[in-house]
């Protein structure tokens, strides 16, 4: 049941935020829940690391015909990251002035979004994953257009249409899987596809799903929605989206390609590597050319999704092609561990960079580079936080991104994947360029003559700075104390690659319910017609 808490707590809170009377109630519920969630996630994480993965058979119905919630080490890390991002962005937004028109909706939707993200990370069932994806989408749709500014609406439409295309493909994939092997449980899918004995067909079944996830993860050529929808968002919401949304897609790609669609790892791995290379290179090229901070950051998200995919693709290719078994296991773990370490670092750092953009906007009223300048002088705190995050993002040693890049490059070179490794390295350089472009233009250069003087930060500045500073501290800690972070990532990768054990855990550990035995009574009456 512990594993369900990260889903149920925010869901309950969302209902509360919607229902409680009073203008301030939703904000309070949101803040309390968001700050509480990291503790819940910590509980799950500790339990998982102490006694192994937790599998909850919801309602007492054994997988695969019931829904399984699976909290392994990877899932628990992701839940923790989601909780941290939630806490930081909500703390940040608590510094923004209340807006009675939208506060209730906003609080409810943020909580629903956090629940949906946790659900997506914990789902062990394909269709259940679909449901959480939809909740994630709908709540993010609402948040994206809540303020109703023109460019938000326009970006929102692009986001909605491409997301719904992705949802359709998800349904197609789920339907085809059920038609082909008669199951929806991810672990069971892996087992039954093996029984089917037609690896190429398994890949066909995987393709609509992987594309659906790729659209959510903003992988080239499906990135269009991201640069349209993210830049116009308000700072806290933008940071929340930047930290979470695309990573749910990446997570689904890793999850399904390591447990369900394992018949042709070399083919899927190669496809993922190709996409990774294209995404890294094109994303960063686009980012370098932008002149507004959030736009730069948005394109970087795509570019860095490429790194995560690179580790995933490498792991799959290594699993398929390395002859020696001991080398294979070690190398694949390193590659996938690199991807997971990258996700870990990226979520923290990218969220923070969007928050920094928010801080800058608050002080200067704009995030256009050409209208900024002199921030290093006027706001040393922002400068320090930005520099830590930017250098982490660019992968400069010994900041957090360096270790992830190092591990990925090492795996790439060891596996002989020269091209994608070269792209990864060059992408690192261009990332450094674009981060330093922000630094030079916004922080170093004298402010332009016409620029308005810095605004007083006003009330609420402190929680904003605290949220951003805390994330910077976490990023710094990941960088300097690389050992625990790598230990987490490596452990998660080991769980993912030990597929047989993972499948057995889900499929065999369930409650034995011999047919006909009476179970505890249930509240709803199934005879009652639905809606």
């Amino acid at each position, binding site marked *: 049941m512990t594993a369900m808490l990260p889903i149920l707590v925010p*869901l309950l809170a*969302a209902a509360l935020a919607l229902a409680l009377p009073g203008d301030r109630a939703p904000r309070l519920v949101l803040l309390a829940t968001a700050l509480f969630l990291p503790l819940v996630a910590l509980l799950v994480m500790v339990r998982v690391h102490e006694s192994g993965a937790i599998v909850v058979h919801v*309602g007492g119905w054994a997988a695969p*015909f*019931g*829904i399984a919630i699976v909290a392994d080490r990877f899932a628990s890390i992701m839940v923790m990251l989601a909780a941290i991002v939630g806490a930081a962005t909500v703390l940040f937004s608590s510094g923004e002035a209340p807006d009675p*028109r*939208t506060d209730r*909706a906003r609080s409810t*939707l943020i909580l629903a979004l956090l629940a949906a993200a946790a659900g997506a990370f914990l789902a062990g069932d394909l269709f*259940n994953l679909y449901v959480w994806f*939809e909740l994630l989408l*709908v709540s993010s749709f*609402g948040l994206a257009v*809540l303020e109703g500014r023109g460019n938000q609406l326009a970006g929102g*439409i692009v986001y909605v249409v491409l997301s719904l*295309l992705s949802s359709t493909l998800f349904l197609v994939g789920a*339907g085809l899987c059920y*038609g082909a*092997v*008669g199951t929806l449980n991810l672990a*069971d899918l892996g087992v039954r596809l093996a*029984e089917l004995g037609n690896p*190429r067909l398994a*890949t*066909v079944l*995987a*393709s*609509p799903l992987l594309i659906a996830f790729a659209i959510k993860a903003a992988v080239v*050529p499906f990135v269009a929605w991201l*640069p*349209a929808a993210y830049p116009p968002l308000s700072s806290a919401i933008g940071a929340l989206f930047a930290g979470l949304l695309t990573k749910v897609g990446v997570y689904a790609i890793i999850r399904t390609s390591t447990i369900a669609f394992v018949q042709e790892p070399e083919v899927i791995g190669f496809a993922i590597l190709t996409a990774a290379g294209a995404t890294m290179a094109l994303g960063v*090229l*686009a*980012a370098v*050319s932008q002149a507004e901070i959030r736009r730069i950051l948005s394109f970087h998200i795509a570019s860095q999704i490429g790194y995560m995919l690179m580790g995933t693709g490498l792991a799959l290719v290594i699993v398929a092609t390395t002859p020696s078994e001991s080398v294979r296991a*070690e190398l694949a773990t390193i590659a996938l561990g690199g991807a997971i370490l990258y996700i870990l670092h990226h979520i923290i750092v990218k969220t923070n960079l969007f928050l920094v953009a928010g801080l800058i906007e608050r002080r200067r009223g704009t995030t256009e580079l050409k209208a900024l300048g002199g921030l290093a002088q006027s706001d040393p705190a922002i400068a320090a936080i930005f520099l830590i995050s930017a250098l982490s993002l660019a992968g*400069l*040693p010994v900041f957090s991104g360096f270790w992830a890049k*190092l591990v990925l*490059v*090492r795996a790439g*070179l060891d596996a002989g994947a020269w091209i994608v490794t070269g792209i990864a*390295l060059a992408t690192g*350089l261009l990332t450094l*360029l674009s981060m330093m*472009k922000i630094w*030079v233009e916004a922080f170093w250069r004298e402010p332009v003559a016409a620029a308005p003087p810095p605004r007083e930060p006003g009330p609420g500045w402190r929680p904003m700075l605290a949220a951003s500073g805390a994330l910077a501290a976490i990023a710094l800690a990941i960088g300097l104390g*690389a*050992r625990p972070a*790598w230990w987490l990532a490596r452990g998660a990768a080991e769980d993912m690659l030990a597929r047989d054990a993972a499948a057995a855990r889900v499929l065999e550990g369930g409650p034995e319910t011999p*047919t*006909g035995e*009476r179970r505890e009574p*249930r509240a709803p009456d*199934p005879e*009652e*017609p*639905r*809606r």
Partner: protein
Amino acid sequence: MALLALAVLVVLAVAAPFVQRAAPRRAGAILAAPILLLAAGFLAELPAVAGGTFASSSWPWIPDLGIAFALRVDGLALLFAILVCTVGPFSILHAGESLAGHPRLGRFQSTLLCFMAAMLGLVVADDLILLFAFWELTSFTSFLLIGFDRERADARRAALQALLVTGGGGLALLAGLLLLAIAAGTGSGPVFSVQGLLESEALREPAAWPLVGPAIVLVLAGCFAKSAMVPLHFWLPNAMEAPTPVSALLHSSTMVKAGVYLAARLSPALGGIALWDNLLLGFGAVTMLGAAFAASRHSQLKKILAYTTVSSLGLLMLLLGLGAAKAAAAYLLAHALFKGCLFYCAGILTEETHVKYAEKLSGLARLMPMTAVAAILGALSMAGAFPLFGFSGKELALKAELAAGSFGLPLVIATVVTAIFTVLAAVLAGIKPFVGAPPRLDEPSAESHADDRAAGPRDPAWPRLLGPLVLAGAGLVAGLAPGLFAKPMVMSTAASIAGSAVPESPLSALGLLWPPTLATALSIAALVLGIVLFALRGAWRRATDPIAAASAFGPDRRWNAALDGLMATGRLVATLLRGPTLTGAVRGALIAIVAIIGLAAWRAGPRPDLKEAAEGTTLLDGAVVAVLVISAIAAPMVGSRMGTIAVLGGAGAALAAVFLLYGAPDLSMTTIAVETLVVVIASLVAAQLPRIKTISGAAARIRDLGIAASFGLLVGWLALSVAGRSELKPVSDEHVLRSVPEAYGRNVVNVILVDFRALDTLGEIFVLGAAAVGVTAMLGTARRRGATP
């Protein structure tokens, strides 16, 4: 000792801004003193190191990856450590004076100290990853230092340029080091220990060549970028935007030497491999000669020094390529001493006279005698004049080249020509400003301005004088009595470079001068010719104008164009990625979807059994499907909003009928209910929706129809060939079996929804709720916005 030194530097770096605030006048001395003590400590280790005893220590860092925080101080490391800890404090002292009162002086000192820590860490690191980390830190701190005058666009540009060139080299280096580590590990995990790498036999095995070959190229690319080898040299002269203390420390003895250091460090492992040697020789020789030529044509003080530095770095690389460990070690030391000295002197000259050009300065010896002594000694050493240590360095280099056999000859010629240019540069930058007619102070040149400090140029106070005097003196002492410190340093460094102890040979200037050899003759000839060239420098510059114009050191000119090109490409890519519009984005996505799924399907080649699929079709089925298909096809043709809504309603109804016909009455009813709601809602908002227009041209429509048709066919084909053909028992069998006995429900569909898959239903309710919240909020904000336009 090494760890202590690192800790001290880091502590000082943290403390610097506070010290600066607390004692603005004495901060420089307070910060410099502990470092000079460190230098003394390192010097005290010299006898032990020269005797072959190396201090080393190691702490696990990320043991899972084989990465350790390992330090080791051998001769090569010690040489650099001493340089960092002596030149470094001089820079701090200099900055404390020359930047006195600058609001960011505290931060500047802090960054300078960070750089020193990074540089020290780089040379004492005994782990490749640690080494790389420090390497990148030197790049980044030097970015901050070069861009110190951040208000000036030139400084910002130079800083970014240096960061990108050295950073790009750093990435190549990372790949190269990793390849070396992997090759040395021979399949059992990479070897990250530097010492382990140097002792590894595996690198020279033919089997390792596919890794080692690329590794050599990549590692040297990194070294060349950092040490400003042609064609990656252009950032270094531009980096002269930095204040004097930065140039003296970074661009003479430390940062730019990092590439030389690493090449020297890896020499025991890779030296002797033809690719390694030839790359070092080739790039070293071209850089040495080219940069010296460029230096001979410049007259701006710092640029002259910058180009001769590039030239010296080329010579050092060349010597490493020759395997001339001792010559490399000696020249390394000599260059650090005289170039550091000259950078300080040039800085003092510019600060005191506000003149940047050597040609405009003369006769300052009487006004600033101490500076003159230091500068002239430095210049003589740079020119390779007897008895300074520069002479020893050049002699050893020429000897090594002469000993290299047939291909040594072109190298000797190149070195002698370089030496001639270097003499010209040395005399111009270090001697000419101090001799000749005194400056006409009553006629201030255009560049000098009469601020209150300008009571005329004079010797600065000791903090700025100490550095050049000590370095110049060291150059003299080293030449006359190398046994004091120069010999143990050079011999132990040479041992590190060669991988084993090198034979003893004379090192003092006198020992090298007598008995005279061919090298001595060449050296003296170069000196004389250099002085002649100095005298004729006006004619020389005019004569070489065409060459300079033709070869106009290109990369820097192309830098802006390259950046602009990058930006233009980037904007193009950004447009491409964005779609550029929704229509384009969807079109691109659909094409990709069809291509990817189509490829997968083509590989698998599923063949649906059409006959079986056609079985059991009734007339009623046909009728229902006909309604569905006709509604769908009509949808894009109907031009009105209400008409389209009606058509869609028809499609929904037909769908409901299909569900009803095939045993899903609940589904059918839900479909009807939902479709009705949709039609109602759509009709309500229809009037407020935009009108339907046909905007695309016919060609676009036909193209889109093609894309859409292949999309539809693909999905239909998959449905036909995959769906419903499972030979495996579906999990719903369990649902059916357990529905009545365990869940007490006769309608299995309902039981699944509220019990077996209740979590889905819970999520679904929240989706509806969230959608409702979103809709309400949007309607709410719209209304209020409308109310207050």
